[in-house]
């Protein structure tokens, strides 16, 4: 069994440097790699291109990297809920590439799967398709979208094992599985790191082959963005 375990975030992020392209799992603040983000803040690497469905909030998630002006370009589908983001974008400090959510997911999955490009109907006839090849299949129009290229992918799972196998929980799964293996180096942080053999091989969401380094995360805040509840009468 090939062991992927490293001691901590510091070891897991060896090799990151300025001007790299990173992928971050998570939807809103759910399922984000909190430990990797904290370590990137500590390292202070800058001029980053970040592929992430969202951009965090002012004081959490990728918002922490924005605060430190570490991000040069965001590739996302939705970037609301972040005043500092808006300020940097409007001032031109931050470049933003907006991509339909399904296309963003599929461009990651294509990178993971060695598919250099695919056709999707999303964005046809809109500014998203500007300058892109289009084609008709069965009377419907499609846009050709290439796979992403990234240096590191930071994903966060619920449980993992020494072999790098990952299991996600609930909707915190989201973009994490499609980014695992979609960059040159995939770093997984988990809430619970187990010995190999502890996970049912039938129930693994992402096999260890897609993960280069895995570590036990710590101090997860798992902040809730919109706390909606029913109240007992």
């Amino acid at each position, binding site marked *: 069994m090939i062991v992927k375990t490293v001691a901590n975030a510091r070891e897991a992020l060896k090799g990151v440097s300025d001007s790299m392209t990173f992928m971050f799992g998570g*939807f*809103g*603040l*759910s*399922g984000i790699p909190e430990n990797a983000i904290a370590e990137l803040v500590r390292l202070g690497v800058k001029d980053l291109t970040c592929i992430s*469905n969202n951009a965090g909030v002012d004081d959490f998630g990728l918002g922490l990297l924005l605060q430190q002006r570490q991000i040069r370009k965001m590739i*996302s*589908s*939705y*970037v*609301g809920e972040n005043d500092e983001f*808006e300020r940097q*974008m*409007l001032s031109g400090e931050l470049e*933003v590439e*907006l991509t*339909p*959510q*399904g*296309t*963003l*997911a*599929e461009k*990651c*999955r294509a990178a993971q799967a060695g598919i250099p490009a695919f056709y*999707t*109907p*999303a*964005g*046809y*006839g*809109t*500014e*998203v398709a500007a300058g892109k090849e289009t084609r008709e299949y069965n009377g419907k129009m499609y846009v050709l979208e290439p796979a992403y290229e990234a240096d590191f992918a930071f994903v966060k799972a*619920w449980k993992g094992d020494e072999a790098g196998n990952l299991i*996600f*929980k*609930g*909707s*915190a*799964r*989201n*973009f*994490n*599985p*499609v980014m695992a293996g979609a960059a040159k180096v995939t770093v997984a942080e988990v809430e619970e790191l187990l010995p190999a053999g502890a996970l049912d091989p039938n129930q693994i*969401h992402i096999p260890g082959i897609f993960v280069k380094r895995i570590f036990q995360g710590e101090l997860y805040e*798992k*902040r*809730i*963005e*919109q*706390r*909606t*509840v*029913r*109240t*007992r009468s």
Partner: protein
Amino acid sequence: MLDKNGIARRIAREVKDGYYVNLGIGIPTLVANFVRDDIEVEFQSENGVLGMGPFPWEGEEDPDIINAGKQTITTLPGASFFDSSMSFAMIRGQHVDLTILGAMEVAENGDIANWKIPGKMVKGMGGAMDLVASAENIIVAMMHTNKAGASKLLERCTLPLTGVGCVKKIVTNLAVLEVGPEGFILLERAPGVSVAEIKAATAGRLHIPDEVPEMDL
């Protein structure tokens, strides 16, 4: 004239037994409250949930179980979680039967604009472009006119498009309309609203049949 709940109530009648439904934020979210009890429907959330249930009881919120609006939710028996590529496989592959979403503008040719106002902060299209480009069955839920009183049903959209020729039906505070080959077709009037009022509030071509019944809510 309908309020937001009224629009949601009317749209709920378009939801059929056995439908998988994706609801956008805003008025569409309210539709879930009005779906008949005697039909079976499952709600899909594009962040990776099928079979969404109500909000959790206070104290039972789970940060790992949210919907596309980032709200804490629960799931019902038969639910499943999946990753974003499989979620959009459901949407792009037309496995979701009905998409209900809001709009800033709809054109008489079915074009829709709902994600960007030039010069204003752009938050992004999220999953809307995938949804409108993929769904066979799209219903727009919106007010008939904007805050300035201008029609949102136009000959051509003026805002950057979200999708082209994709809207089939529109339910507003004034009317139910279909997108036909030659413009909007007026199907129903909201209670107490006249055809003349609807005509005045619609900038795009409007075909008015001889009979335009009042909505049956």
